[in-house]
């Protein structure tokens, strides 16, 4: 079988330009890899028109780096005429009638959507085990999870089924699975990428981002995804920039902060040791790394629970069995239809979060919980801003442990949140954050470094990530 998909994307592009290969060759290779690795359960739906779409591109001259490259899309990003389930029974047969803005952009660049990836139901979870379609597996050890909620996208890229994927990150859902599976995942600054067509979970936190094998491919794909969009008024207008522009530069003079909390005893020893090696490598190469105190980091999970569950309860009110999705049978009243549809259509994790979210927003509770969480959220953001007055980047481990075994968090509603304890603060402040692999532990499982940047300064994150990628 051909191995074109293992090549760097620039090399693939060169072969396409020279007409030595065609987009159909790439699609066929991806489809056969997906079939051979079906046990990874990375995909929920395969695009059955993708070969036809690839054939049509065969006659066209490549006009950009991503022309003809297969890509996978997380199944909470709507794709016209291609099933979008959010890994839920309630949307099991939902066929969107429009494309998300990011999907329009990848189609404009002639990428080929190979299929929709598995995930936690409605992106709620940290292992993708809440998927109605069963959990995707970690290609490094199939007894382990690939993380969540973008676990299918991470599994597909890490397993070499596909070079590129889209994920979404509300509380670490791109970076944590990227860490567990040893690949590169970026959550861009909130507002960088349009959320139009992303099935909303927690609207003030959600952001779409790229999941790739290398830092260069990640930055290049982000170039395609960004931009202001009138259909998402939280998207921000910014001058066009090339996120790859600092890749390859040395890191001399870069000022990096390492918050004490990120290397406290909540982090596994082997991971802490590796992070220290990264720090000393940065030191040796002229960067300044200081350990700093940061307040409020330990409250972030708590804030996330309140804000995300409250916003989810409101966003998921739309799934009522009326306009789309599953509807329970044998119902005699509208109230009964709502209750039974949602009771039978949602899984346990989603039900728990909607119920607690509804409680948080009911009556006086909104003040006690939601309003107070928003106040402390503002304080976390100010704390990040204080650090960024003196430093260019903040680093730490992406996760406190390597990918856990399947079933480890089952029926423990608390654990699902604690897996994301180090990545959640970034969503609170709307900052960009990236996972880059920095080697493996003694069991051969990937360890990830989390690099946090100033708002809209993804380019500096990529600069450090690419420097480290060469070594670790």
């Amino acid at each position, binding site marked *: 079988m051909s191995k074109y998909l293992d090549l760097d994307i620039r090399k693939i592009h060169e072969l396409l330009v020279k007409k030595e290969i065609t987009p159909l060759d790439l699609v066929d290779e991806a489809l056969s890899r997906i079939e051979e690795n079906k046990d990874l359960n990375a995909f929920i739906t395969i695009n059955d028109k993708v070969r036809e779409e690839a054939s049509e591109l065969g006659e066209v001259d490549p006009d950009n780096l991503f022309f003809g490259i297969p890509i996978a899309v997380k199944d909470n990003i709507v794709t016209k005429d291609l099933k979008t389930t959010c890994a839920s029974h309630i949307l099991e*047969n939902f066929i969107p009638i429009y494309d998300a803005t990011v999907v329009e952009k990848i189609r404009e660049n002639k990428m080929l959507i190979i299929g929709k990836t598995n995930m936690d139901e409605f992106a709620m979870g940290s292992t993708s085990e809440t998927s109605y379609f069963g959990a995707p597996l970690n290609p490094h050890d199939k007894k382990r999870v690939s993380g969540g909620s973008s676990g299918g996208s991470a599994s597909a890229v890490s397993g070499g089924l596909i070079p590129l994927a889209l994920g979404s990150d509300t509380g670490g859902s791109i970076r944590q699975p990227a860490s567990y599976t040893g690949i590169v995942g970026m959550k861009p600054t909130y507002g960088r990428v349009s959320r139009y067509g992303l099935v909303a979970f927690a609207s003030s936190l959600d952001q779409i981002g790229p999941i790739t094998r290398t830092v260069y491919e990640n930055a290049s794909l982000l170039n395609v995804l960004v931009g202001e969009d009138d259909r998402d008024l939280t998207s921000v207008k910014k001058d066009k920039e090339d996120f790859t522009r600092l890749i390859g530069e040395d890191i001399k003079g870069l000022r990096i902060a390492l918050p004490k909390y990120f290397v406290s005893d909540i982090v596994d020893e082997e991971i802490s040791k590796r992070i220290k090696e990264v720090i000393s490598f940065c030191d040796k190469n002229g960067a300044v790394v200081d350990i700093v105190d940061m307040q409020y980091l330990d409250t972030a999970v708590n804030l996330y629970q309140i804000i995300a569950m409250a916003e989810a309860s409101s966003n998921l009110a739309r799934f009522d069995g009326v306009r789309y999705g599953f509807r329970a049978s044998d119902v005699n009243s*509208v109230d009964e239809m*709502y209750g039974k549809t949602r009771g039978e259509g949602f899984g346990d994790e989603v039900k728990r979060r909607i*119920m*607690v979210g509804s409680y948080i927003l009911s009556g006086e509770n909104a003040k006690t919980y939601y309003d107070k969480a928003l106040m402390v959220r503002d304080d976390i953001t100010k704390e990040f801003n204080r650090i960024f007055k003196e430093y260019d980047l903040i680093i730490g481990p992406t996760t406190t442990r390597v990918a856990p075994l399947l079933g480890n968090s089952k029926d423990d509603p608390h654990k699902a949140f604690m897996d994301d304890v180090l990545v959640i603060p970034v969503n609170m402040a*709307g900052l960009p954050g990236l996972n880059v692999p920095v080697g493996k532990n003694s069991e051969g499982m990937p360890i990830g470094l989390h690099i946090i940047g100033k708002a809209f300064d993804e380019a500096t994150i990529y600069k450090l990530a690419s420097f480290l990628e060469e070594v670790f």
Partner: protein
Amino acid sequence: MDRLSREEVLHVAYLARISLTGEEIEKFRVQLKVLMDDIDKIKSVKDYDDEMMYTPIEDNTRLREDVVGKMLSAKDATINAPKKNGSFIEVPVMINE
């Protein structure tokens, strides 16, 4: 193990418009209590400012021009409806409820 009462679970399930089976009610009595205890921890945060952050976006007042855009056709709008009659979506009888 700490748990909510059946009535408390049924109350939040009603707020969320989610019907639960008897078995689920028992399971959620424990699981929801864990989450309720988690969210209660916010009460112990003492040192904070009273400014609220609704969104990370600094300019959150941007609005688009109010112009007539593309409309969905009735066919597209109802294409995923679980029960329909022509271009109408069917729901259970609401009158006299």
